[in-house]
């Protein structure tokens, strides 16, 4: 068994986008019969690695090969042909049944209608979805959809390598357990299984080997007993060196019209159950972070504070529960920026009368240009002029424009989702600084983070949301290092999870 065990070998994979090195010589060996977990902070190169493995992008240098595969020469075959990728969003035909989806995956058979073969039935039985074979995918539960996705991938290419990319982030706890039970069965057949996930408990429970990816490389590999939530959390947050670029920024921010007040939230409950009974204070002059994984409800909590998504309970500025002005910046730039507008127009896109228009609605073009120029300078947008196309900017600078646009209206409460997602390190430092400055003008800044490092670098106070509940609320200054903070969060989440599964 050991001699002809299949191995997926990634050797010195490198891929750059402009000046950003997404993969910087990443090497990893994944063996058949094992589940190899891949974890890493956002922007570490995970998604580029997934794309390279799936054959969606080519590498600048390095190679990916598969050895020991039945029928393949020992030297290896291009891996993209045999890697089956299962993403979070399924790419099934929702209007067809499970069996029809599998039949549609068969290689083209000329004029004959695709039909369910014995092999299809075997695969469905193996994955435990045979009973659902005649149901339309749209009527199936998420776990059945994910398993159908796997089945289709196996059938289409008889894949040796199964790459699961955040497969269960939308699944419930019980569904995840079923899902992994089936995946484990596939592993035991000798297939190579790669699991990319943010969920530390899954890495601990199901993986035989965990690779931590940072800055486009594997920074650590954990095997067997080394795989604990605390250890992974620590490896994920080894301090990053923030860019030492001099930041010249003396532009004062307009002080608030009234005395600074804290944002007070009590018994705050989502109408569709994403979170419940949340209570916290976000002090003016500080940055408050809401930390939580995808699906924990943390993201929905932040959005609800801005009025996006309904929730009930108390939420308002301290005192007479004054209604507050807020601006919300979502994580995806497709929904925070306007690709058809130039940089200047994007900067002022949330402003109206009197900043850029008269009360009657006439544009004040000189004022508009001045406001935009001021924001452009104050938010350190680089690599363009205000008249450039927004698409010509780098990710980091686009993000600064999005933040500037949200902050331009000087809201009492500024809400941001993952403010540095897909942003290079030096822009990251500047964005942290800009948000700190904004808070320092006497306003409330609340951010949703999925990374502990970001909490440590950016926030003054943080709360942790797990399964819709607040499990922890602390000052960042209580922790000496990000590692310590990460450990404390992992412990709190673990304790909470154990209480709630018991």
């Amino acid at each position, binding site marked *: 068994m050991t001699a002809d065990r299949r191995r997926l070998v990634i050797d010195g994979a490198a891929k750059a986008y402009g000046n950003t090195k997404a993969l910087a010589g990443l090497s990893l060996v994944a063996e058949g019969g094992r589940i190899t977990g891949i974890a890493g902070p956002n922007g570490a190169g995970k998604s580029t690695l997934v794309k390279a493995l799936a054959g969606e992008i080519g590498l600048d240098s390095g190679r990916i090969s598969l050895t020991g595969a039945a029928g393949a020469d020992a030297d290896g075959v291009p891996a993209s042909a045999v890697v089956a990728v299962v993403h979070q969003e399924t790419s099934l035909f929702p209007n067809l049944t499970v069996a029809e989806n599998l039949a549609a995956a068969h290689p083209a058979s000329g004029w004959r209608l695709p039909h369910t073969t014995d092999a299809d039935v075997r695969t469905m039985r193996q994955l435990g979805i045979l009973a659902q074979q005649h149901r339309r995918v749209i009527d199936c539960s998420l776990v059945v959809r994910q398993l159908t996705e796997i089945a289709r991938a196996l059938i289409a290419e008889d894949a040796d390598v199964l790459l699961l990319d955040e497969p269960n982030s939308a699944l419930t706890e019980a569904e995840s357990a079923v899902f992994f039970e089936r995946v484990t069965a596939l592993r035991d057949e000798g297939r190579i299984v790669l699991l990319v996930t943010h969920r530390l408990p899954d890495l601990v429970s199901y993986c035989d080997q965990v690779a931590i990816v940072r800055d486009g490389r594997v920074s650590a590999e954990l095997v067997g007993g080394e795989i604990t939530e605390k250890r992974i959390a620590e490896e994920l947050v080894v301090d990053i060196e923030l860019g030492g670029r001099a930041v010249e920024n003396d532009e004062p921010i307009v002080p608030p019209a009234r005395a600074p007040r804290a944002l007070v939230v009590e018994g705050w409950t989502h109408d569709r159950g994403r979170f419940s009974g949340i209570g916290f204070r976000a002090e003016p002059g500080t940055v408050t972070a809401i930390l939580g994984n995808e699906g924990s409800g943390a993201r929905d909590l932040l959005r609800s504070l801005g009025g996006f998504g309904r929730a009930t309970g108390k939420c308002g500025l301290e005192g007479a529960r004054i209604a507050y002005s807020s601006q919300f910046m979502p994580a995806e730039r497709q929904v925070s920026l306007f690709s*058809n507008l130039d940089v200047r127009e994007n900067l002022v896109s949330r402003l109206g009368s009197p900043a850029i228009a008269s009360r009657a609605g006439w544009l004040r073009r000189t004022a508009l*240009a001045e406001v935009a*120029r001021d924001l452009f300078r104050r938010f350190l947008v680089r690599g363009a002029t205000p*008249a450039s196309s927004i698409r010509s900017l780098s*990710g980091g600078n686009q993000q600064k424009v999005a933040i500037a646009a949200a902050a331009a209206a000087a809201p009492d409460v500024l809400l941001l989702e993952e403010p540095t997602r897909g942003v290079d390190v030096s822009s990251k430092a500047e964005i942290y600084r800009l948000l700190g400055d904004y808070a320092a003008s006497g306003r409330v800044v609340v951010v949703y983070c999925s990374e502990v490092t970001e909490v440590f670098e950016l926030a003054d106070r943080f709360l942790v949301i797990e399964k819709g509940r607040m499990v922890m609320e602390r000052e960042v200054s209580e922790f000496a290092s990000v590692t310590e903070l990460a450990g404390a969060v992992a412990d709190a989440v673990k304790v909470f999870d154990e209480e709630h599964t018991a």
Partner: protein
Amino acid sequence: MSSSTSTADTPRRALLRELWNPRIVGLLLAIVVAVVTFAVINHNFLNASNILTLAQSMSSIVIVAMGITFVILTGEIDLSAGSVFGFVPMLTALLWVGGMPLALALPIGLLSGVAIGFLNGLIVTRFDIPSFIVTLGSMNVVYGLTLLISSARSVDPKYAATPVPMDQYDFFRSLAASQVLPNFSSHIWWFLGVTIILWIVRHRTLFGFRLVAIGGSIESARTARLKVRTYVVIVFTLSAGLAGLAGMLAFSFLGSTDPSAGQNLLFPAFAAVIVGGASLNGGVGTIGGTFIGAVLLSVLSNGLSLIGVGSFAQLIFVGGVTIAAVVLDRWTTSRHRPYRFGGFR
């Protein structure tokens, strides 16, 4: 940092920037080529009287296309404009001939157009139905209404069973048919005026600015708390209102109105918008582009008529030109723009 570098590109140059883009320059070149070709084949093409005829014939297309441009800027579509063009004057004509004074019949007609547009916008936004479906439906509803109320007969108020008062008739005809100079009818002033006003709305008001933003990304617009629904209702109202106005002016110019008026207008109006560079995805499109697109199409149809190409063959030609313009645009811009519209890195 010196501020003069950024001052150099204030929005003051919006008009210049709007005109100085490959699309517009290409269109202007195409117009020049067409004009020269037609003039060589038929010397009457450049007669003052033919040029004024050409300008007058553009009027309906331009006014309808301007309204459609605003709808398309938000990423929606309005197929009902042609039917509204026929309905509004017919309603006015029937009320007027039926004994209602013009001072009442005229505004009622125009308001009916506005109401149809408002309803279109309301259905699209409240029930979240694609505007293609809503306006495809209202296109037929409104045309059916026109046929029903008119019994499918055209109306000439001067020769009706009970003719309308002459003073009212003369006033109504003077709206679009009065001659400023020989052959220079006031119909021309109307579309020039509408174009200028809408250019101002598009480039000089907060409304125009936000409209373009909404068309660029409706999601971003919602995040920015722009009143997306209100804006969409307004553009549908504007589009139908303008289509009604255009129909009314055509009625005034011709002296009679036909129930099928406007039925052949939808395609040329859309063609002008598309040839003028607007994107059906929304967020891209200019008033100047639409105007120049309308000029090109009018030059083509006028010139083709003059050199003896029949109206059936013209349909083929205008349809072909529209497709060619879009293909050419895709082909040239895709080389310079590595990212598709709406794509972020």
